[in-house]
């Protein structure tokens, strides 16, 4: 079965190609085929997992050679699959959550005329993401990496008749290119210094790397990870990426694609282990982004953008854990899996709420939706408790482990990283509770369409209703995962033991503070965050228009001026550069060419006068020539 692992990728890829090639002829059944392909991919993946589970832990890293891909002299790259616990964890997450989101999309996209194309892109995304995680070399990983970037671009801009959405798609694409550049250069350095880009080759030779080279490769890989995972300083695209349909935000911009950066860092363990500086920078980036994302999530009134800030923040936790080295890898992946479930659940819940409210994303026009959307309320509540880390929900198990690990170490690092993780947990509790209370509790800040209230009422008229079963069922499944997954995966040595063949066995040293103290502090801070949010948004009336707010709030609403900084630092200088280049092109390059032509024409116009047609003037010229030639000969001889 392991040899057939390529089917996991091939099935959604074939389905996507079929739907795109058949065009409108497959409109009637396209969504069913795509969903079936995702489910089939999950089933094949599950069979592979079962077979790998049958192997002894040491044997669990399987390399499946597919074909010789780039045989170019010294650079010979084979396309192959790395089937090991790490990649299989991702395969399970991608295909399972992916299948659920396919099902959900059937309901969510019912009224969209381009539903078939949407499903074709979703399949394309699943296939590309599976290539990314199953690749056995950085080069093949890069193929998947670009593939998910393309699918993300196509899906963010799915409603590209809206200019803002098309611009958001382009922004995501361009910012991802910056990160991709880092990955390409890192691959170039690997080939230059190690002569190979395959995982096995790099892992075997990485210990021989000089520290500066390892640091350079590590930092470039981190740049790639930052671009894909929306980490500082390449985080600004994620908020705008919410322009895509909500299932896309759930699948690509919450559960799977944006976690690819974490995967890359864990996969490149051998490089990062040889480069402590790169590791430290990774942890710093993670710690900073987790606070930045959380602050942004607090400031937004748009439910999806608030969730996007939360995604940024949660991935910050994962990057922080991955930056702590082998002790954090397993927890980063653990949090990634649980986050994939509860965040997808939250996004799909938000999608249901939007669906019920005429596609409005403004939380200030929600309120009191619990009575009309009981299932969505219940699933959202479960995912909310999971993300803020209330025991025994999934987020508690995974996030608490990261916080504990962040407190491990010596010097200033455990205090800074651990402190950031703790504060992050409190802020997470605040903004998620704010979202939950603003949406489902308090007084309704909308009026039912059928009500007899006057037209001067400022509240929007809505007709909220519970979503159909095809949309609620996937969310219920995700919510079950959000309840149970943390407990299930930490049974025994659980996911840590399962990942051990990849991450290596590590002893977990004691944190600088006793574990019970950290645990209590976390729970107290979480409770404080929830209480604050309840006082502010649950008990009080939420104004329909946002108050001016403190400078911090205003900054958070504007993503801490990330767009302004990017525009000032990159966009405007870039525009000036291109304008200068265009000017130089027309003035210098074109000028030289047209100038040469004009000069030839002008000199021809002057010389043409000599050809006057008078035989006698020609004769005079001949005579003059003879006389001059004679005079020259005469003078030279003297």
């Amino acid at each position, binding site marked *: 079965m392991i040899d057939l692992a390529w089917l996991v990728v091939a099935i959604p890829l074939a389905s996507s190609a079929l739907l795109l090639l058949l065009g409108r002829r497959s409109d009637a059944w396209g969504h069913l085929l795509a969903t079936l392909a995702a489910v089939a991919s999950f089933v094949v993946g599950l069979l592979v997992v079962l077979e790998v589970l049958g192997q002894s832990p040491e044997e669990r890293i399987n390399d499946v050679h597919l074909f010789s891909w780039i045989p170019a002299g010294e650079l010979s790259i084979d396309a192959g699959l790395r089937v090991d616990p790490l990649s299989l964890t991702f395969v399970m997450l991608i295909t399972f959550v992916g299948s659920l989101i396919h099902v959900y999309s059937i309901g969510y996209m019912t009224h969209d005329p381009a539903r078939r194309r949407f499903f074709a892109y979703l399949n394309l995304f699943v296939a590309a993401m599976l290539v990314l995680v199953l690749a056995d070399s950085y080069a093949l990983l890069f193929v998947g990496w670009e593939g998910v970037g393309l699918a993300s671009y196509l899906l963010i801009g799915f409603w590209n008749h809206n200019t803002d959405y098309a611009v958001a798609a382009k922004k995501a694409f361009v910012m991802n290119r910056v990160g991709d550049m880092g990955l390409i250069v890192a691959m170039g350095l690997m080939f230059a210094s190690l002569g190979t880009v395959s995982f096995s080759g790099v892992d075997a030779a990485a210990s021989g790397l000089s520290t500066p080279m390892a640091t350079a490769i590590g930092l470039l890989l981190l740049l790639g990870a930052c671009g894909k995972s929306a980490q500082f300083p390449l985080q600004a695209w994620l908020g705008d990426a919410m322009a895509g349909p909500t299932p896309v935000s759930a699948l690509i911009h919450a559960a799977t694609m944006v976690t690819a950066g974490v995967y890359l860092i864990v996969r490149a363990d051998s490089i990062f282990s040889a480069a402590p500086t790169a590791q430290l920078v990774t942890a710093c980036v993670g710690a900073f982004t987790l606070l930045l994302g959380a602050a942004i999530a607090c400031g937004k009134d748009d439910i999806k953008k608030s969730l996007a800030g939360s995604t940024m923040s949660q991935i910050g936790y994962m990057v922080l854990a991955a930056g702590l080295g082998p002790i954090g890898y397993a927890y980063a992946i653990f949090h990634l899996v649980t986050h994939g479930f509860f965040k997808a659940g939250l996004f799909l819940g938000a999608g249901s709420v939007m669906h019920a409210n005429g596609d409005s994303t403004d939380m200030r026009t929600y309120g009191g939706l619990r009575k009309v959307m009981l299932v969505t309320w219940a699933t959202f509540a479960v995912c909310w408790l999971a993300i803020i880390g209330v025991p025994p929900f999934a987020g508690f198990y995974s996030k608490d482990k990261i916080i504990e690990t962040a407190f491990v170490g010596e010097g200033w690092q455990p205090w800074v990283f651990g402190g950031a993780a703790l504060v992050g947990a409190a802020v997470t509790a605040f903004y998620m509770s704010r979202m939950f209370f603003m949406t489902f509790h308090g007084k309704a800040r909308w009026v039912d369409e059928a009500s007899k209230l006057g037209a001067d009422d400022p509240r929007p008229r809505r007709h909220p209703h519970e979503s159909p079963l095809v949309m609620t069922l996937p969310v219920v499944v995700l919510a079950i995962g959000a309840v149970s997954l943390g407990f299930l995966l930490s049974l025994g040595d659980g996911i840590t033991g399962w990942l051990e063949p990849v991450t290596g066995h590590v002893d977990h040293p004691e944190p600088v503070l006793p574990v019970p103290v950290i645990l209590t502090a976390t729970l107290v801070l979480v409770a404080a965050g929830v209480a604050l949010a309840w006082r502010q948004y649950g008990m009080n009336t939420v104004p329909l228009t946002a108050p001016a707010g403190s400078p911090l709030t205003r900054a958070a609403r504007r993503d801490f001026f990330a767009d302004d900084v990017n525009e000032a630092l990159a966009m405007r200088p870039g525009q000036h550069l291109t304008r200068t280049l265009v000017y130089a092109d027309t003035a210098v390059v074109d000028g030289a060419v047209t100038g040469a032509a004009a000069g030839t024409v002008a000199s021809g116009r002057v010389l043409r006068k000599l*050809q006057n*047609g008078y035989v*006698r003037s020609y004769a005079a010229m001949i005579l003059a020539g003879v006389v001059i030639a004679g005079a020259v000969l005469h003078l030279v001889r003297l």
Partner: protein
Amino acid sequence: MSLMHYLVLSGILFTIGAVTVLVRRNAILAFMGVELMLNSCNLALVAFSRVHGTLTGQVMAFYVMVVAAAEVVVGLAIIVSIYRARRTVSVDEPSLLRN
């Protein structure tokens, strides 16, 4: 009579011929100027031949005469055909190929 006398006479004849070619518009006269230039050269050749006591210069003079005869034939034919076509023998008239 020294060599110099011949050469000076040859130079005077050549100049007269050249000036004729340059200033006269009539094709026949220009033609005669060319003949005068050729014959001034012949005079110089023969004079040198006599001074050196070899026949090379005289042989060359004969060659020039032969070529000049052939040239007269072709040249007069062209002048006649131009006259037939354009009713003029001015060398300035057929300047259609200018520019």
